[in-house]
């Protein structure tokens, strides 16, 4: 009798959990299914199944141009983030210097309001980049990296803290050359933090919208924003575009899921 009651309770709770999950994920499930539909709205009729939406999106010149632009900008952002942020995070982890904790705390504090400060400085940024003639697609990755400095330096520093320092200290004391120290000792032992930074930088650049839109660069999010109004009647086309856009992000999320969880915990721990 007791086991039956428990069984029924389990069934009931599972049903509750499932219906909440289904409701919350309904928009995403809907968009996923509609992308394979011949009709602009979802139909459960299997005869409407098609992959033509994806073919026509990929054949669309606008989409391809934006895809190339977004890939280049994101690639450049990853490269610059590694170049600028890794050495700084390493220094924050291994060196003792004046103003170190002030800088770290400022980074941490700033990262809590970076979104708001980012928007709040748009006017001045627009004016001052315009005056210096710096409104260019080549500057965009630098802008992205600058916004990533506070949080990612801080995050990466925590990762470096967990890598035993005996190794690089020993190499330094032995009088190894800088080249050996960097490429034979430090970099090989810090693959994980560097991978995390690369993934975060890519995800940040790939999904940045506000700056790209303001300066009129047609990256994928900007293109989709232009489409989403016009596409309400061609919801299936928008859905196909959205899936193609989300694929790299989802792959990276799955690779880095563990790290993302860790990053959030660190953010919470302060």
């Amino acid at each position, binding site marked *: 009798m007791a086991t039956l009651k428990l069984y029924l309770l389990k069934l009931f709770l599972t049903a509750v959990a499932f219906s909440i999950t289904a409701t919350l994920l309904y928009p995403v499930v809907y968009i996923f299914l509609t992308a394979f539909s011949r009709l602009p709205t979802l139909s459960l009729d299997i005869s409407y199944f098609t992959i033509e939406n994806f073919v026509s999106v990929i054949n669309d010149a606008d989409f391809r141009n934006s895809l190339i632009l977004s890939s280049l900008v994101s690639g450049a952002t990853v490269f610059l983030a590694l170049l600028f*942020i890794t050495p700084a995070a390493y220094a924050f982890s291994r060196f003792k210097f004046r103003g170190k904790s002030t800088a770290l705390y400022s980074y941490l504090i700033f990262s809590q309001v970076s979104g708001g400060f*980012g*928007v709040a400085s748009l006017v001045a940024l627009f004016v001052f980049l315009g005056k210096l003639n710096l409104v260019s697609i080549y500057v965009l990755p630098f802008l992205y990296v*600058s916004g990533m400095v506070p949080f990612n330096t801080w995050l990466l520093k925590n990762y470096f803290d967990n890598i035993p320092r005996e190794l690089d200290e020993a190499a330094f004391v032995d009088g190894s050359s800088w080249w050996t120290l960097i490429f034979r000792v430090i970099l090989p032992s810090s693959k994980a933090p560097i991978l995390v930074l690369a993934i975060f930088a890519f995800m940040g650049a790939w999904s940045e919208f506000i700056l790209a839109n303001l300066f009129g660069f047609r990256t994928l999010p900007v293109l989709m924003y232009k489409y989403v109004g016009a596409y*309400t009647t061609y919801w299936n086309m928008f859905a196909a575009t959205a899936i193609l856009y*989300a694929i790299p992000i989802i792959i990276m999320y799955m690779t880095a899921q563990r790290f993302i969880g860790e990053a959030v915990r660190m953010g919470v721990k302060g």
Partner: protein
Amino acid sequence: MAKPKGKEELLFPAKIALLLTIPSLFLFIFFNIWPIAFSVYLAFTNANQINVYNPEYPARPLRFIGLSNFVQLFNDPAFYYSLLKTLLFLGTSVPLKMLVGVGLAFLFSSPLIYGKRVMRGLLLTPWALPAILSVMIWRGALDPRYGPMTPFFSLIVGRPFQAVGTTMNEWDSFLAYNIIEMWLAYPFVMTVVGGAISGIPKEIIEASIVDGAGVFSRTTKVVLPLIMRTVAFVAVLTSGASLQAFLIPFVLNDGGPMKIFAGKLISSNDLLLLYGYHRFMRDYEWGYAAAFYLIVVMILSVYVYIWFKFVFQRGGK
């Protein structure tokens, strides 16, 4: 070999530290801090989209106008309107996402659910998607004619739900912002609070069962007090997101229907950051927008001060 004195004892020369940190610090200051300093200058001028590049523009030369922008701002009912709308959004969206997130954390802390891990993983989807994509998906989902979520919300409000499109309704779009903000934030709340719940020692729960506490009193009297600090902490963090809401109103419907408020054309749901953006991109009053954004920076500084205090109350780590 003798052990180096203390972990922090430097083996590397300090000059190298400088060399390694300066480039990123420079980048950060140049593109993030300098514009804020530059808006201090703009805020005291009558800058607009022409005279800022051509200071001797005859119709309106670029001039220092002292505190005029700030005087105008504080006498502008639209500014207070936006401030109140933002506070209202803070007051509605934070409880909503806390309720959903904490509720889900409790539900999924139960061992009595089949497929718990799979469902919990799936529920993190909003986290995996870029925020910009999520808001665009919601924009489609709330389309008045074709949107798959529209019938559901029409049922709730008791008439056709209109948060997107040419005949938008002010409060429908406000409700939509709340729903989307909740949707973006519940995975975070759920994960952190869920972590706190699973961190409660089993002995405490077992002791309360032995003492005869039912599910309800066990939840409210034993578990809830133990995770209260975490819940409060998450609430503070997630308030920051609501205070800085920009992407949601901007991408969903650009602030909702336009209306004339105290002689000024504004969007009816101009939350703080969006209000400034509209003064910048619609009115071209760049000096005024800069002055406004300085006030926003101050408001955010107050928030971040509260956040900082909170972190240190928890013991600093």
